[in-house]
């Protein structure tokens, strides 16, 4: 089945409770997963000497989990600001791909909306929203609720972690597996045909090989491009025969 950008025309702007409810429900697994990770970040920030308000402000302005972990570690090690900014750029570059893919369901949407929407594009919100856009019954307002619910949870979790993180036992109720489990479920929903399965297998194998050979965070972008291109070429070849 082809993705049809017309399935989700620009929604009528109706600030209804239904949009809020469905958006929050979709964001729930993300929020559950963000709690332990955000708190862990807060604990590390506190150990690095950042006051709770400072790390909270970082979560407000930067909202990028893995980049924030690296930034806090670099701050603790006394790295320079330009080095931290450059590392952040490299770590977050994978969002270029996600932002491009979101342009398909958000085609023709007003620029003002996109300015607000782009702020909250993360691995997790991207995976949830793209899956929802495809299965239908989803629009940009619900997607925006997902972004902001996840962001708010993240900010609160980092501040709680900085204030009281060391008091809370780690790993309770398997909550550290919330995000991997959510990604597994979303992957299952994306496997709709042989090309998608092949693309996933190529992406997984390439990512592992890439990460073992080249340390750092480039493996996500690298493996995704390799796998999507391979899947694309395989599909073209199959269709031309």
């Amino acid at each position, binding site marked *: 089945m*082809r993705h049809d*950008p017309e399935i989700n025309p620009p929604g009528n702007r109706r600030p209804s409770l239904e949009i809020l409810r469905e958006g929050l429900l*979709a964001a729930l*697994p993300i929020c*559950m997963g963000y709690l332990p990770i955000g708190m862990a970040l807060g604990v590390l920030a506190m150990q*690095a*000497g950042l006051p709770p308000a*400072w790390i909270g*402000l*970082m979560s407000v*302005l*930067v*909202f990028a989990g893995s*980049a924030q972990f690296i*930034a806090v570690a670099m701050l603790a090690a006394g790295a320079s600001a*330009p080095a*931290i*900014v*450059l590392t*952040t*750029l490299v770590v*977050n570059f994978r969002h*270029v*791909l*996600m*932002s*491009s*893919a979101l*342009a*398909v369901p*958000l085609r023709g949407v007003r*620029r003002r909306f*996109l300015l607000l929407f*782009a702020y909250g594009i993360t*691995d997790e919100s*991207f*995976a949830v929203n793209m899956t929802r856009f495809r299965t239908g019954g989803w629009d940009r307002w619900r997607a925006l609720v997902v972004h902001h619910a996840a962001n708010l949870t993240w900010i609160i979790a980092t501040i709680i972690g900085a204030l009281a993180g060391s008091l809370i036992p780690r790993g309770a*109720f*398997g909550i550290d*597996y*919330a995000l*991997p*489990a959510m*990604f*597994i*479920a*979303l*992957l*299952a929903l994306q496997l709709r045909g042989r090309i998608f399965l092949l*693309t*996933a*297998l190529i*992406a997984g194998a390439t*990512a592992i090989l890439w990460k073992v050979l080249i340390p750092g965070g480039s*493996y*996500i972008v690298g*493996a995704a491009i390799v*796998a*999507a291109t391979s*899947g694309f070429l395989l599909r073209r070849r199959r269709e031309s025969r």
Partner: protein
Amino acid sequence: MMDFSRYLLLLLGMCAVTYLPRLLPLLVLSQRELPRWLTEWLELIPVAILAAILAPELLLDRHGALDLLRPEFWIAIPTLLFALKTRSLGGTVIIGMGLFWLSGIQLP
């Protein structure tokens, strides 16, 4: 630790390099008709990114070495089967967390 004004400057720099890669492709690509090959390629990006994020998380240990015995990996199999069967996001998250929790109890 640095003083607040320098910290704020650092955050603004980080903010710019986080926000712009998220904004610019969306801003440019959403306002025009995309060629068919690009939409077909982009259609495969979500599944590719999901697998590229997940596989190393499940199969590499914290030092980046391949480890086929990680509970994260073995729990992923029943979790994936459950997701394929039920197609339920919330249910899958609860099953995955529950299995991971149990594995932590049995393998301290």
